């Protein structure tokens, strides 16, 4: 029961306390308006170079912009405890660590889904993107799975914040690399071989591929292998992030560096 409370109430309180962009004056420009211009920017570059149609860039970027919540959010939600000097107090409690971490991830997954969905709606309103109505449930599932796997990678970034001096440097870098490597803007098979290898191990690459197929009319059974792969990647990054969190917690206690800045 206590773990459930830590998961829901703790996660909600951590979100309210540590997510610096929660105020509408910050949230709207940073999480909604800015990312929409990302969708438009790459769609227009795509038109100029004659690479792919608008749908390619709308799906790719609408999914990848959930990293604003998944990566930056988790960097704030976990790494932020160190900045606010509350990490020791949190780790002194006997709270179930698994519930503690997952509870923090949940609001950012929901946030990522919202940002992605907003990206899709704006792409539909502003660009030449008209997915069939029947594809919407599958697209919704893909958005949810992709936001989850991105947040799992964000957990790794956030956990690194328990050790690294500047977690936002890493968060920014990861977000930029996701824009490059997930195939959001460049077809994965047009990348050099080594980039393709990295791309296939990253969150959202398979989600984006599934999203493009679904937006073109593919059914759930035609893309379910990609969704399962995306979920598998989410589980791997989630496990890695949790392990990193426990490792840095242990190391921080051992070396008395939990809140050293």
């Amino acid at each position, binding site marked *: 029961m206590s773990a459930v409370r830590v998961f829901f109430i703790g996660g909600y309180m951590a979100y309210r306390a540590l997510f610096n962009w929660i*105020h509408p004056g910050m949230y709207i420009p*940073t999480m909604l308006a800015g990312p929409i*211009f990302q969708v438009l920017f790459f769609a227009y570059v795509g038109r*100029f*170079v004659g*690479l792919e149609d608008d749908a390619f860039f709308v799906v790719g970027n609408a999914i990848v912009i959930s990293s604003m919540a998944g990566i930056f959010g988790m960097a704030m939600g976990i790494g932020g405890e160190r900045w606010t000097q509350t990490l020791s107090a949190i780790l002194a409690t006997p709270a179930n660590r698994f519930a503690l971490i997952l509870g923090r991830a949940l609001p950012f997954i929901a946030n990522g889904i919202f940002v992605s969905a907003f990206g899709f709606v704006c792409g539909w309103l502003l660009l030449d993107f008209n997915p069939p109505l029947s594809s919407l449930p599958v697209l919704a599932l893909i958005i949810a799975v992709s936001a989850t796997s991105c947040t799992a990678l964000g957990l790794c970034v956030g956990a690194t914040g328990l050790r690294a001096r500047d977690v936002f440097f890493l968060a*920014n870098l990861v977000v930029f690399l996701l824009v490059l490597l997930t195939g959001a803007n460049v077809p994965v098979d047009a990348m050099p071989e080594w980039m393709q290898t990295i791309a296939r191990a990253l969150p959202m690459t398979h989600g984006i591929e599934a999203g493009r197929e679904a937006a073109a009319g593919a059914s759930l059974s035609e893309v379910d292998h990609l969704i399962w792969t995306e979920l598998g990647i989410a589980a791997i990054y989630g496990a890695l992030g949790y392990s990193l969190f426990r490792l840095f917690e242990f190391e921080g206690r051992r070396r008395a560096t939990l809140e050293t800045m």
Partner: protein
Amino acid sequence: MNALRLIWAGWKFHLKSLTLSGFFILTSVLQPVIFATIAFLMFRAGAGDTTLLYVSLGSGMMGIWSSTLFGSGGAIQWQRWQGTLEYLIAVPPSFVMVLVPLTLATSTIGLYSLTATLLWGRLFFGVPFDVVHPLLFAVAIPATVIGLGLLGLVMAASFILWRSGANALSNLLEYPVWLATGLLVPLSLLPNWVEPVSWVLAPTWGVRAIRESALGGDPFFPVVMCVLLGGVYLVLGTILLNHFERLARQHATLSLT
């Protein structure tokens, strides 16, 4: 003479301190290289016949805009956080003379991006760096830096008035300006109303000046426009800054973060 000395000393100081900032290494070196890679791959895989040097220069200019936007947009807020804003306002020179070197330094540090994207393009994508008018290229770069730096002054003085903090506007304006100033996409592809907007933005003329001097064309007019717009930004920035200073003194909010 004193003013020039102040600008020179301030510019050098801020340039050195920005060079030590991890965030500016990210925005002026790593981010432009990542975005240049995306652009190179897109242009190479696409059906167009645009030269990759066009892409290199555009991506470098994207980096100059980002470093100016984030550096200048948050300049006053940053001084507040550092606890140095009161001192900067209390010193005998006017606040605008203290702030201009900082905003110029943020656009100057963007030159790392141009260098990084040109080198990256040369080393990994075989992009030749053959400049058609080297002398004009050498003039176009400082003109662009000055134009953007003074636009930075306007951003510094206006973003601080946004209640939710300057960062919100900086986060918002990166992509729209990349798009609306034709850094990678010709303005003719955008809706008609974007073009008049682009005329009042220094990056539009900066990228034209740099591209036309490098790839061939007449960079003279864009260079003049960069300098002229810089003058307009200086006047506008001074008015806004005086307004900010008056409000901050009136409401005793100078040091409030």
